[in-house]
């Protein structure tokens, strides 16, 4: 069997090698391109993740709180009443009066001013001898409520005086 011509043999091999080499470089170049794109995409992803983490992940478990706070607020805001109409009468001793009640009455007065007549309040002294005051106190006593208390005139719902105006809105508002 004649030996193959080395050149002949070599030629296809070379040719073949030559073809393989181009393919190799094609693969190398393509692979590098894909790798680069992938890396870039990965880097973008990392940046994106990092940004997200920066929004929600400060230190010491703050992330959990920060993630939850907006949800809680949404929930609380949903529960909180924002508007109150009608007249709320606060029946209490005008003295002694606490800093909280002083502030509540001031806030209620201010809210009445901006409510364009929809809301009004009265702060009534338990010592007021007027029959109207006695009637309100008697009506409250009938359901075992004694001053200090508040009553929504339109619904005649009695309740203890809470700590702030928001709680009054929550009780009588919508």
């Amino acid at each position, binding site marked *: 069997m004649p030996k193959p011509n080395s050149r002949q043999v070599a030629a296809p091999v070379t040719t073949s090698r030559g073809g393989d080499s181009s393919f190799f470089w094609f693969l190398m170049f393509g692979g590098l391109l894909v790798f680069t794109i992938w890396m870039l995409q990965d880097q973008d992803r990392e940046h994106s993740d990092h940004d997200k983490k920066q929004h929600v992940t400060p230190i010491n478990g703050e992330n959990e709180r920060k993630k939850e706070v907006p949800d809680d607020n949404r929930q609380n805001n949903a529960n909180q009443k924002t508007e109150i109409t009608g007249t709320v009468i606060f029946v209490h001793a005008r003295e002694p*009066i606490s800093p909280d009640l002083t502030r509540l009455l*001031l806030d209620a007065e201010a809210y009445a001013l901006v409510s364009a007549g929809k809301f009004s309040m*009265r702060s*009534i*002294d338990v*010592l*007021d001898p007027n029959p109207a005051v006695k009637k309100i106190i008697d009506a409250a006593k009938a359901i075992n409520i004694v001053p200090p208390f508040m009553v929504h005139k339109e619904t005649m719902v009695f309740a203890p005086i809470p700590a702030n105006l928001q709680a009054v809105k929550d009780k009588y508002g919508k």
Partner: protein
Amino acid sequence: MASDTPVFELDGQKFATGLLLSSTDNVALMARVAEFEDKLMWEDDAIKNALVINGASRHILDRERHGAYMRNQGEIGSCCPCANTTGIEQTRQAQGMPHVALAHCFTYTQISGGKDSGATLPDAFTSTQQMGATPYLLQIGGMTKRYPNDVYSSRQVPADIHKAATEQAKRFRGVRLLKLPLGNFEKFCRAAATGIAKRWPMVWAWQVENIGMRLNKGYMQLARGAGNHANCIHSGKWVGGKTLVHGDNQNSWGPVRDPMYGPAVAGWGENGYGLTTMEGLFACAHIHPPYFIISVGVDPNDPAFAGL
């Protein structure tokens, strides 16, 4: 005709005072008024929190709130009725009651003895508690008539107006007063600061001389003396330290925004207001004990109580 009481001039306008020394009966009456007790006093933080709102001093906000109802007694010696009716209006406002302009001269006619020679503070507050204070605007026979603000005797007032005023006054009565403790200056300061923080108007006395007609850097200039003029401390400025608060005085010398409250003139102080120190508030306190108007009664005509 000018008042028999000391009259001072400012920018060509005359302003009367009108505070008389208390009679023996007045002193006995004042002794029966409840005194501000230690247990009612607030700590510094609570006082400060009530007087500094969002970084602003409440006396500035209150000047705006109360300035619409500034009085000008003019040349009538009605400072005591002015101070008390102003205090009643402000307490009504703090109690959420609709504003009703109250005629100080009605109260003056009740206690003047028919002469324009001034009055005492105990007589003025007793009148507002027993007779009540009457509105300027009165409905008489289908017409609205106004109680005059330049009178000192009921004889100067048309009979129908005075009769209606006497009837309407029952609607606006003071309920509770509290006098300040005078035995100890530090306690006086804390009681005064607490009451101001609680939004109670304080009726007090000071001595006016010519220098008192102008402020010095926003502060009143009080003369030495027993006290010849009564006013209303409507609010205060937190200053801290031992005296805690400087009172913001609402005088009764204009400028009025509503002419119902007296003659329209340039008026006194910063739009009728001027600050005073606790030393100033205390200066005449032993002769004319200052007091807070804590509460006023429900107006039976108030729609908030209709149907209850």
